């Protein structure tokens, strides 16, 4: 999988769908365009979002650099600049721009970025289930009861006021917890990036790698769970 050594860096540019230009059939050597006939080339279906935006598979990315690259590539691919070109080039530009937009949307958000990287490194993202943090299990069950009680309580009654205050306190606790999780995630992200930067492929680093991926996965699913509860809480007492 991701076992590139520093001596053989991952190609930073876009990977093109074909090694041969769709138009003039010469070998494509340029990054996004055929060097001979200057036609735009389609982004390969296999290109991952990191490669697409020219970034290494890291979990902490500089948002400013990411944005700059997105703007640069938008200028390269946006259909607005292909209006006077052939229909084939217009279709390619449309497809490329759509991929670019999805790539940027995914990578600019640290959580989505991590989920996406998990999918790349350890199989399907769909495995990330939403699961409650083990230590909060009891508390969450209780919260669900309170929520139910509040929903069925009479509006503006004393009971409902009391329940509401309790729920608001609970919301603050959970928000706090969510922030802690995010801080923890950030730490794991840094660890992951450091491991990747070392670029070693020993059995020890493989164990380390799997441990990190598992921790990130667990935290992400806990966070998703807490997020949905907090949202639910917020809409109920809004």
């Amino acid at each position, binding site marked *: 999988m991701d076992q590139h050594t520093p001596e053989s860096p991952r190609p930073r540019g876009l990977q093109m769908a074909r090694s041969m230009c769709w138009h003039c059939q010469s070998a494509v050597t340029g990054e996004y365009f055929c060097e001979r006939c200057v036609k735009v080339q389609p982004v390969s279906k296999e290109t991952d979002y990191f490669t697409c935006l020219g970034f290494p598979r890291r979990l902490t990315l500089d948002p400013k650099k990411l944005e700059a690259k997105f*703007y640069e590539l*938008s*200028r390269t691919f*946006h*259909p*607005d*600049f292909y*209006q*006077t070109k052939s229909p084939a080039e217009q279709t390619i530009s*449309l*497809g490329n*721009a*759509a*991929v670019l*937009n*999805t790539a*940027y*949307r995914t990578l600019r958000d640290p959580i989505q970025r991590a989920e996406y990287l998990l999918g790349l490194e350890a199989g399907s993202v769909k495995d990330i289930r939403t699961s409650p943090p083990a230590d909060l299990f009891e508390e969450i069950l209780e919260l669900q009861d309170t929520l139910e009680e509040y929903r069925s309580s009479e509006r503006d009654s004393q009971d409902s006021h009391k329940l509401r205050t309790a729920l608001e306190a609970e919301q603050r606790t959970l928000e706090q917890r969510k922030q802690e999780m995010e801080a923890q995630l950030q730490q794991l992200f840094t660890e992951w990036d450091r491991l990747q930067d070392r670029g070693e492929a020993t059995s020890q680093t493989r164990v380390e790698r799997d441990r990190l991926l598992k921790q990130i996965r667990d935290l992400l699913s806990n966070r998703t769970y807490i997020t949905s509860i907090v949202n639910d809480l917020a809409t109920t007492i809004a």
Partner: protein
Amino acid sequence: MTRIVGIDLGTTNSLVAYMKDGQPCVVPDRNGRTMVPSVVALTDNGLIVGDSAKEHLTRNPERTVYSVKRFMGKGLADVQNELAYFPYTLTETGGVIRIQLGEKRYSPPQISAMILKELKRRAEAYLGESIGKAVITVPAYFNDSQRQATKDAGLIAGLEVLRIINEPTAASLAYGLQKRTQGTIAVYDFGGGTFDISILKLKDGIFEVLATNGDTHLGGDDLDRLLVDLFIGQIQEQHGINLSEYSDHMQAARLEAERAKVRLSDDLKTTITIELPDDKGHFTRELTRDQLESLTIRVIERTLAPCRTALKDAGLTSTDIDEVVLVGGSTRMPLVRQSVEALFGKAPHCHLNPDEVVALGAAVQADILSGGTTDMLLLDVTPLSLGIETMGGVMSSLIRRNTTIPASAKELFTTYVDGQTGVDIHILQGERELVKDNRSLARFRLKVPPLPAGVPRIEVTFLIDANGILNVTATDMRTGQSQSIEVKPSYGLADAEVERMIEDSFKFAADDVSARKLIEARLDAEALLKTTEKSLAEAGDLITADEAEGIRNALSQLATAKDGHGSPYHPCADGRTRTGRKTVERGDAERFAQEKSAREESHRSHVKRAYGI
């Protein structure tokens, strides 16, 4: 390089603009007016559009269509609760509203096409070249059906619509071009029939929309309606007349309400005068700005919730906004400005003409598409989430709202029954969980080879292009073959019907043109006679007797020509009107009148300055 024009197809008024030496300009008519009222009337001499049609609103309300934009991409059920306000007859065929005009029924895209053709003609006459390509603006919150309907209108008008662009983002282009701003801006666009809010980040020539929101059924029309309802109630009370039974008087009341609203943007009070039916005299009352504001505040406040949602979706708070730009005629109301200022905590920018800025921006976008400009690029978003119906009547989102377009999503479909040969797919747009609460866009049937259940694998790609319009393609993953999909729109014209309308539009074009030209020439002549006579009366002493005599001669010749029948009558593009033998230098008379009123004006302002008024 063929020219591409930018068109603002508005609810109340429409404009066309083009690029001249790197600057966008609005095309004026011969009288210098830039706005074409979005009104189409059927007269005995055929269909007419714009200022001349507007006069038929009160004369011939059942056959005069206004605010047609409200019906684009809609079914009859969507406008059920406002049918009473429209004097013309609406029906529905194939999920599309039809408007009865005389013997014929027209779809909203056909009516819009007439307005577009008028703009096209105007641009052609002004620029002296034929126009075949355009960028047309739509409210940012328009859904797929409404965008498609706008594109259809362009096709029917004989225009290749190179791009459908959102009105607030168009405005931001014009604004950005002029101000060279960097930072985060909010464009608050409150027009005649629609409301939009867009939050954009401007950086190094990139205009990135972060979020957009709005209400495609909220505009100045709704404010006028509140006023009309107030007047109707009082007329009933004071005169025992139910005005709503008289569609011509209703239109007069609506126009008076609109004018009063406009006046109250400058004045603190105004007088309303509405003629009553059956020679029962007039209804008059005073209306103060305070009264207008307390009547309309709830409607104006309805614009604020979308603003808050857009800010939240952009991940920003009002303090992050560097500048607020106002677009649309309704933003001239002081209360609107105050509400916007209160929400964003800063005075809005209103140095651009809110009526013209959208058309100007469309011209900038047209310039980008034609390769004239490469330093600006607009990255817009889709305003509504796109999804498909899944088990249990639930919508499953594929592309979330505020996703940068072009955007695509892929979904893999298979079968549940052995030998199943099709899968029905229902496409939706909206933010609600249940299918029934969202907007149905289209349905199609995916063709599947008869195989055991679960074996077929068809990948469907949903692509929202840079126009915000959905394109659907499907590929059989087993064979790699793509299949064409015939999408049946829920609220749109089928391709075949659009084709037929294009043909019709060419067929009737010749008849329409001559009838329209006669009517227009007469109206122009009438207006010219009136203004020149007025100027002569007011300032005739400023010119020599010879000059005055010459003008009077020209006037009487024009008057004869205007009322003439059958004689050759050829209005020319250069503004001259020629009768059989003699040539009336109407361009000259007109210029003369204008120069004179300019002289008068400067005279007046001298007086003002001298007395410090």
